[in-house]
């Protein structure tokens, strides 16, 4: 009774919501997960062009040995060995020399440009929100950012949620209190608060007491300790819970390695290991359901091709990224390699693939009914052979 009454309060009919829940992802549609690696990942270390003769002139303390050879040119960072099985069974692909059309070397500008989906400028809504807008509404967990705040990429008119942890996503207190808050927020004058409140309560109701929300990892998947592992696990829970998740977003920081970056071990290696272990555990946890998912990593910029004066790297331009999941033409590095002997502005790896072409390929392959011209209004994505 109570449940019915507050659903009505929200203007949603019970049958509509039930049918939305009951609907599993159709054969064509996949959940899109993006992982923003904040700080600017040194793509030349994450996926090292060991076969480029200029590499050893540019870098001294940063070069690593012993990582998985991806092809005659590229070598995976040795701290990322957890990705080996995924690459070998072709569920994981690399894209290299990827970046922005009008790059910025400012963290927040570069992040805002990417998340806006625009060339060298920004706006108040994000590319993922515009992709989301094409889906039917009324599913509480349609789009979720597993982080403290809603990132710009998901901000906009279409409903999206942000919370850092499923376990803590509940109102503590006497029963019925949730209902009161719900009514208060429904009447809020401030639109941002009203919308966030609405989204919060709708989802709170959907998650309350559900077994999937606290399910253990399957298939012996071992997530890395820390927030990133927990968030990847929560994303897997949302997928396994069949709650209609279309877009999931999370992030990992700590890639701004200006000083003592390290090679096979060290500061960057630790972060890359956390990323690789999280991705690998997510894949193991999902098992065959990984085919229903597309995961893409991205970062705001790569770093200087040359090692700087403090055994680190400064803000650069192109970087590398991973795409994983169903339909990915994996087990290969997709790159139009610009060569390290022809650097952009004599300092950075040049961009030969616009990041938005990759993101659009992923959105398209996920079966989202969005139009490229809505998602990336000032850019015509180039077709890539990233998905079969």
């Amino acid at each position, binding site marked *: 009774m109570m449940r019915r009454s507050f659903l009505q309060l929200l203007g949603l009919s019970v049958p509509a919501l039930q049918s939305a829940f009951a609907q599993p992802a159709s054969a064509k549609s996949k959940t899109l997960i993006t992982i923003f690696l904040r700080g600017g990942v040194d793509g030349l270390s994450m996926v090292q062009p060991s076969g480029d003769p200029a590499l050893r002139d540019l870098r001294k303390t940063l070069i690593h040995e012993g990582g998985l050879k991806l092809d005659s040119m590229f070598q995976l960072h040795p701290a990322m060995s957890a990705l080996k099985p995924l690459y070998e069974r072709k569920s994981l692909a690399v894209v290299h020399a990827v970046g922005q059309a009008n790059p910025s070397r400012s963290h927040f500008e570069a992040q805002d440009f990417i998340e806006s989906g625009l060339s060298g400028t920004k706006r108040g809504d994000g590319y993922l929100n515009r992709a989301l807008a094409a889906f039917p509404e009324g599913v509480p967990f349609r789009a979720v950012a597993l982080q403290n*705040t809603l990132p710009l990429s998901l901000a906009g008119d279409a409903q999206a949620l942000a919370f850092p942890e499923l376990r803590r996503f509940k109102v503590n207190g006497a029963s019925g209190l949730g209902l009161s808050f719900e009514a208060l927020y429904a009447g809020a004058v401030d639109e941002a608060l009203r919308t966030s409140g609405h989204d919060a309560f709708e989802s709170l109701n959907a998650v309350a007491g559900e077994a999937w929300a606290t399910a253990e990892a399957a298939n012996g998947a071992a997530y890395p300790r820390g927030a990133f592992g927990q968030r990847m696990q929560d994303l897997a829970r949302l997928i396994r819970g069949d709650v209609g998740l279309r877009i999931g977003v999370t992030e990992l920081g700590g890639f701004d390695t200006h000083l003592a970056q390290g090679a096979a071990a060290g500061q960057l290696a630790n972060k890359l290991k956390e990323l690789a272990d999280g991705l690998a555990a997510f894949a193991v946890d999902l098992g065959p359901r990984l085919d229903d998912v597309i995961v893409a990593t991205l970062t705001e910029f790569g770093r200087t091709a040359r090692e700087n004066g*403090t*055994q680190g790297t400064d803000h650069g331009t192109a970087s590398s990224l991973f795409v994983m999941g169903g339909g990915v033409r994996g087990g290969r590095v997709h790159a139009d390699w610009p060569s390290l002997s022809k650097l952009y502005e004599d300092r950075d790896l040049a961009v030969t693939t616009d990041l938005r072409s990759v993101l659009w390929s992923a959105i398209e392959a996920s079966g989202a009914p969005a139009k490229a011209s809505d998602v990336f209004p000032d850019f015509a994505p180039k077709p890539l052979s990233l998905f079969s």
Partner: protein
Amino acid sequence: MRVMALAVLFGACATPTQPVIAPAPAPMTIPANGWSPQQRAHHLLNRAAFGPSPSDLAELEHVGEAAWLTAQLDPSGHDAQLEAKLSGFKTLPLTVAQAFAAYPPPQQRLKELGITPDELKDNPELRKQLMRENADELPRNLLIEATQAKLIRSIESRRQLEEVLVDFWFNHFNVSAEKNRTRWMISAYERDAIRPFVLGKFRELLGATAKHPAMLWYLDNWMSVRDGFEVPRRRRGGQLPRRMPTGLNENYARELLELHTVGVNAGYDQDDVREAARALTGWSIRVRPRDGEFGTFIFQSIAHDSGPKEIFGLELAAGGGIEDGEKLLDYLARHPATARHIARKLCVRFVSDEPPQALIDEVAATFVRTDGDLRETTKAIFTSPHFWSDEARAAKTKAPLEFVASSVRAIGTLNEVRQPLARVLDQMGEPLYRCNPPTGFAEHATPWVSAGALVNRINFGLALASGRVPGVSVTLPAAGANSAETLDRVSAVLLGRPLSEGTRGTILKALAGEEADGEMRAIAPAKVAGLLIGSPEFQHQ
């Protein structure tokens, strides 16, 4: 004759003439508007303080707005009660060197105890024992105490505006305790580089942050040296780092331009960033642990790039030494783009997320006219009609710290800060002293209004009002003759105004509807307070 004239001219430039008798400060006029005194008091205390507390409301009513603001802008008096409370925190007065000595980094401590990292790795019992035996000197105490002190100050300091400004300027010149060694420097940074200058000159504040080890470490400038630098043999073992760098690190120089001064759209380019980094080479930290001045600023002239530089319109002749950096800071502090950038950010913090351009111009003009006097610049905001306009009232969403501090100030007494109170801020996405990117936390609301954040706020309000936040006791108005009266009393305390009819009806209905027998019963004040703190109205300031 001509030489004389020049000398006079230069002399006048170098030392501004001091008037013999300081002119009496102009009496402060605060614009009138149509609000009730209670509404005015809540508005002022919501912005110039961490929200209204019963004692600050009483003081403001007693002395009047102008006198209250004048005192807040020149807070010379002691706050004995606060000082007594903070005197128990051992880490707050420590220098960086003392902090490292008293709270040694784990590796160093292990070395002193003669334990190898491998021994520890295979022996969880030993690890537990060490943690227990050394609990008082674990480095985590540095951050715990800093966090607790900040909460106490935000909630209880009588110099509220100073605390708000310390929060603003720390965030503007952000460093994060998450970047390993910065943790040992964070209290010293706030105490020595931020707090003394928040009502002083911007140039002094800029200089203090530029030379503080926390900033030099956090943005890597301490390791930035001229390209091709090699340590001369005779200097090895001196104040130079062991693993010596060989060239520029442009991290600090970039953020100095982008975040601290002129702003990202000022028109500088990558070359300007590199030139600025060259000007700042050699600005470093004394790093030898045995040195008494360990962890203080040092200019390493042998690591400095002595060539000429040109930075965003500033020309520096060769051989400037440490003056290169000083001149760069002078130039940036007085650049008109800096005035605009700072004015805008202050207006977003204190007035609204989209402040009117006329106000920004007004505040920027004050900044320029007073050569970056932050007392005058801050005053210009609070005495502007824009601050007192209907558009500005309740126009801002509280940031996490503002939300937590204002709710405790309204109905609570802080007996002691326990960790759950600090952890609430972590969950709301703004952990104190741990904002990793140099941008600091956003001053506008969009990033912190999200479903998860609201749920955290609702839960905090419920816990606080029902006395479940450890270390905080709660005083609520007595229940009224009926539920409506109780509601009005609680809302007067928390919001400074009666609730809108809609919200009032919703709460009465929601709380009354809970009763199984349908009888209207008196609502407990705690229940109302719990709801109101989590309500949309209380998220505003």
